[in-house]
C-alpha cells in the first residue's frame, strides 16, 4: 500500500482570508515568527502497491478536474511510502 498525497494551495495572487486570519492570530498567542501564512488542503489517497506512472497521471487528471479549481488553485502530487 502506498499513499499519494495531493497538496492544493490557492494561487499566490489569490487573496487567502483564512491564512490572513491565522497570521493575525499567531502574534496574539506570542508567536512572532510569521510574516505570512497561506492555508491549503491536503488529500491522502491510498492505493494498492506502488503507484505506477499511469496511476499518477490519473491522479493528476483528477486533481485538475475535481480536487482543485485551476482558476484559483495550484496542486502538487507526490507519493509517500
Amino acid at each position, binding site marked *: 500500500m502506498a499513499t499519494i498525497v495531493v497538496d492544493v494551495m490557492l494561487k499566490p495572487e489569490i487573496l487567502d*482570508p*483564512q491564512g490572513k486570519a491565522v497570521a493575525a492570530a499567531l502574534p496574539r498567542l506570542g508567536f512572532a515568527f510569521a510574516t505570512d501564512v497561506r492555508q491549503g488542503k491536503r488529500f491522502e489517497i491510498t492505493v494498492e502497491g506502488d503507484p505506477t506512472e499511469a496511476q499518477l497521471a490519473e491522479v493528476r487528471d483528477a486533481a485538475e478536474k475535481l480536487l482543485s479549481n485551476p482558476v*484559483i488553485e495550484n496542486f502538487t502530487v507526490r507519493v509517500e511510502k
Partner: protein
Amino acid sequence: MKIGVVTFPGTLDDRDAARAVRAAGGEAIELWHDDAELKGVDAVILPGGFSYGDYLRCGAISRFSPVMEPLIAAAQGGMPLLGICNGFQVLAEAHLIPGALTRNQHLHFLCTDQTIRIENTETAWTNSFRENQEIVIPLKNGEGSYQCDDETLKMLEGEGRIIARYVGENPNGSRNLIAGITNERGNIVGLMPHPEHAINPLTGPSADGLGFFTSVLKTLVAGGAK
C-alpha cells in the same frame, strides 16, 4: 413557459426560486440532482444553499451531478440558465462562466439587504430592468468574493459582461464590486445576491428581484436567448 429549478442535496432556496417563477407568470418544474434529463423545461435556475455541504469547494461536487450533463449541453446551446449564490458557484465550477467565488474577504457570513446596480440589460435574465437601475435584494453568503485573473477582468469589463455591481462599500471583497456576470451569449447569468427572496415587499426588502424572472419569460416568449 416551464422554468426548471434544480434541487441538490443541501439546496435551500429552491422553493423561493419556484415561487418567484410562479409570481412572474411561469410554470416552475422541480428538477432533482439525480435526474438524467431536463423534463422539457425552457430555462433552468440553480438556486442557493449549501449543496453537498459545500464540501471540497462550494459547488465543486454538484457540478458533477447527473443533471449537470444535459444542463451544461442545453446552456451551451443557448438555453437560459441562472445560477444564484451557490448556483453561481456551481456555474463557475462547471466553467460555464469565468472566474471563481472565494471566501468573503472579512471571513464573516453575510446576510444583508444589498443595493446592486444592473449594468447589462441585454441578457436573458436582466432585460426587464432599466440600464443602471439600482435595486435592493438580499445578499447572504460565506463565499461570495468574485475572483479572476486580470486578463479575464479586463475582458468582462470590455465586453459589458458584468451584469450587476454592488453599490457602496464592497461587501465581500469581489473584484471590481462584481455581483453578477454573464457568458458571451448572454443566456447564462451567475448572481451572488438573491432576487428570489425579493419578489414581494411582504416577504422581502422589495419586489425588485422579480425582474430577473419576468426577464427570462420575456426572452422565451421572444423566441429564446439572443
